[in-house]
């Protein structure tokens, strides 16, 4: 589809749909008339699409029950809705979204949600609790990366079209926040089934809709997905039946050749906002009067992961060596790469409840201790290992490949000989997921603003710890502490348990946190309404032309 084709299609369709929507809304529609609808400021001034510059190499699928990594966050935020969400500028406050209200049973096991009436999917079907049940069951049965989110849930019931009942396996203080994760979005079950989706056991083999859902969306959100060309662009157009209308009816997420091209596109005005620029480039943009920068602290980290698999690298798999590596890193130097960056001592990022204090619990570089530990472990002359990372990934302005060079130099001073494997996403990502690494630099940030998103995935029983770092420690003391914390309703006691678990993990866990950067979104001042958010980055529907 050419650019010209693309622009004609949705625009004409939109005018027609705007009319329909006004007519459907009814409120004084007769008086305004359909023609007036076409000429509303929304149609005239905002006709230029919102263009977001962004490297979309990380997008594999846009199926809400499968999607992961980064870019999908804004697409899911635009095309789908969850039951509840958090205040855009205050991740600590949960607000109703597609659910009007909810109740928790006294034993904290049953959550009953009442849906807002009259919510429509883009297909014209009305949203019912059965759609949520289908979506949640499909999330579990597809067994994709986000399927772990369903682990606490025993059953999903839809007793009537506007009531959804979720029953948990055990009381879970975290569950409500986790429900804000965009993977818990509702999809139109009727249309999904037409395209091969299923929520039955065995869906991971039988469901054939994932591909289709990468090109189309079937949600209740302000946009519908109109196209996805891998590595090039993602397009969205206003959803005519949406319950909240977007300010700008068309969105294009356009990839640039590299970050300097992306920066120039922003400076020239070819894109309205640039997501994924380097720290140094963002600093240069701060002097530009046409450009402003929205920021939010990253609720996550960039970490150095280490394998526990002795068949991969005997030295790294040695716990004493791993502790030595943690003490060989120049954390202060890494933090100096970005103004405002932090170094979380363990899994919980600073800013979320239960975080450790870097001043008291953080690792300090101590080369003498490293030398002693390496000698004790039987490697007095050091050892060799590989360090893999993505060539293109930039998290919060920090280039993972640059961090890899820094870590390599730090470890070289401790006598550890590192060979870098800086590779393209499509080579690096499968290797990382399969745990085919000695050392690795990877990042993670919350899909919902709660420390358990990180603890569940990276903790001793988590998918990252087991599959990527091959850590087998089901009896680690942190496991019991975290299980207890999950069912502890009192927040202060829970946070203390989380801290205790992290202290237990500090020396043992096969990773160390390198940096917690700041997320920055430079944008042209011709747009307003950009609210940076640490979980979904930003909501395209709230952005308007200034």
């Amino acid at each position, binding site marked *: 589809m050419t650019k010209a084709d693309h622009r004609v299609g949705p625009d004409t369709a939109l005018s027609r749909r705007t009319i329909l929507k006004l007519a459907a809304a009814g409120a004084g529609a007769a008086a305004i008339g359909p023609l007036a609808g076409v000429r509303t400021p929304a149609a005239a001034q905002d006709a230029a699409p919102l263009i977001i510059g962004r490297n979309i190499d990380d997008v594999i699928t846009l199926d809400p029950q499968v999607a992961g990594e980064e870019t999908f966050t804004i697409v899911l935020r635009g095309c789908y809705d969850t039951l509840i969400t958090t205040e855009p500028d205050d991740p600590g406050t949960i607000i109703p979204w597609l659910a009007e209200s909810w109740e928790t049973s006294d034993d904290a096991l049953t959550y009953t949600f009442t849906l807002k009436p009259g919510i429509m999917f883009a297909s014209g079907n009305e949203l019912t609790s059965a759609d949520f049940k289908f979506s949640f069951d499909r999330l579990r049965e597809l067994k994709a990366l986000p399927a772990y989110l369903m682990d606490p849930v025993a059953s999903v019931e839809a007793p009537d079209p506007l009531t959804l009942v979720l029953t948990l396996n055990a009381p879970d203080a975290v569950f409500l926040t986790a429900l804000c994760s965009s993977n818990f979005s509702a999809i139109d079950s009727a249309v999904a089934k037409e395209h091969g989706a299923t929520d039955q056991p065995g869906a991971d083999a039988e469901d054939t809709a994932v591909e289709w859902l990468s090109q189309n969306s079937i949600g209740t959100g302000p946009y519908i997905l109109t196209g996805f060309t891998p590595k090039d662009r993602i397009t969205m157009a206003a959803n005519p039946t949406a319950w909240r209308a977007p300010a700008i009816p068309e969105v294009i997420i356009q990839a640039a050749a*590299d*970050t*300097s091209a992306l*920066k120039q596109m922003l400076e020239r005005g070819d894109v309205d906002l640039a997501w994924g620029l*380097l720290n*140094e*480039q963002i600093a*240069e943009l701060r002097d530009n009067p046409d450009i402003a920068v929205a920021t939010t602290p990253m609720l996550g980290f960039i970490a150095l992961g280490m394998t526990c698999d002795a068949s991969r690298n005997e030295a790294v798999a040695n716990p004493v060596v791993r502790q030595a590596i943690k003490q060989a890193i120049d954390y202060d*130097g890494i933090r*100096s*790469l970005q103004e405002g960056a932090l170094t979380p001592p363990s899994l919980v990022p600073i800013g979320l409840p239960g975080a450790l204090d870097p001043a008291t619990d953080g690792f300090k570089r101590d080369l003498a201790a490293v030398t002693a530990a390496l000698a004790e472990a039987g490697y007095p002359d050091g050892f060799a290992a590989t360090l893999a990372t993505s*060539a293109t990934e930039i998290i919060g302005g920090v*280039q993972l*490949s*640059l961090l*890899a*060079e*820094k870590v*390599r*130099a730090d470890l*070289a001073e401790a006598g550890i000989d590192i*060979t*870098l*494997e*800086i*590779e*393209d996403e499509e*080579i690096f990502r499968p290797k990382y997921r399969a745990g085919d690494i000695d050392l690795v630099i990877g990042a993670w940030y919350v899909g919902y603003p709660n420390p358990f998103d990180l603890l569940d995935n990276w903790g001793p029983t988590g998918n990252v710890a087991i599959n990527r770092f091959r850590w087998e420690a089901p009896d680690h003391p942190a496991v019991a502490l975290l299980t207890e914390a999950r069912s502890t309703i009192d927040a202060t006691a829970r946070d203390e348990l989380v801290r205790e678990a992290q202290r237990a993990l500090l020396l043992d866990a096969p990773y160390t946190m390198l940096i917690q950067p700041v997320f920055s979104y430079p944008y042209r001042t011709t747009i307003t309404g950009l609210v940076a958010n640490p979980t979904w980055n930003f909501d395209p529907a709230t952005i308007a032309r200034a």
Partner: protein
Amino acid sequence: MALTATMPVLMPARPERRADPWRALRTRPLATSGAAILLIWLIVILAGPRIATHDPLQQSLADRLSPPSREYLFGTDKLGRDLFSRVIYAARVSIPVGVMVIALAAAVGTTLGALAGFAGGAIDEALMRVTDVFLAFPPIILALAIAAALGPDLKNAMLALVAVWWPSYARMMRGVTLSIKQQEYVLASVAMGAGQGRILLRTILPNAVMPLLVLATVDIGGGVTAAAALSYLGLGVQPPTPEWGALVSDGAEALDQWWLATFPGLAILTVVLAFNLVGDAVQDFLDPRLRGT
């Protein structure tokens, strides 16, 4: 000798052509400056560690992205490493890699080309169809594909470049062999009972050296650029080893820090220019008919 009129480079070298090459160089100021630049780079390669002012891998985060100064002649990169020292050390990778790629491609291509031309028949057909296949692809795209498939590594990048470069040598060598094979003095040595190996090595190869040398000297600049291009795209030398293409790539992400891409870029420019000037002179010297073209 009708053949030689249409195929000038194929003529056997005559003794008078072996006139003093130094004089030839002196009368060509451009070539002389090219040779001078190459001489300087040769010194840089040999004496690199003495010329460099810093350890090229030493990071100094406090001084990151400093502009050129007396302390850091070419400024520093994103991790505070001295760019001057990195450019110097990179020369020890980039230039030898370019030269080796061409040398290997010439060796492989010459051998196969001579074999094809000399043996003729099915062997010739098979080898030439293989070169057709390689020549049908745009060379840098093919090299990219091969390097990407083999994985990012200096050896793989060189292998990829040799793989796309040898066919042009094979083609040339086959043509030379075919024409020399028909020369009367070759026929004469066949008549005198010389073995095939002797004819190939003693009669044909020496006469092919000159066109080979011309092609190779002109190509070396291209070899250096192509190796840098692969590294620029992340498929060649892996960090932290400095290499010109990789250094330019680092700098391309930070255009406001102009020094990052400029100095390694200038290094590539001077070397390629010098090789081309010298290559042209060699070509003129060995084949006066092409002078001025």
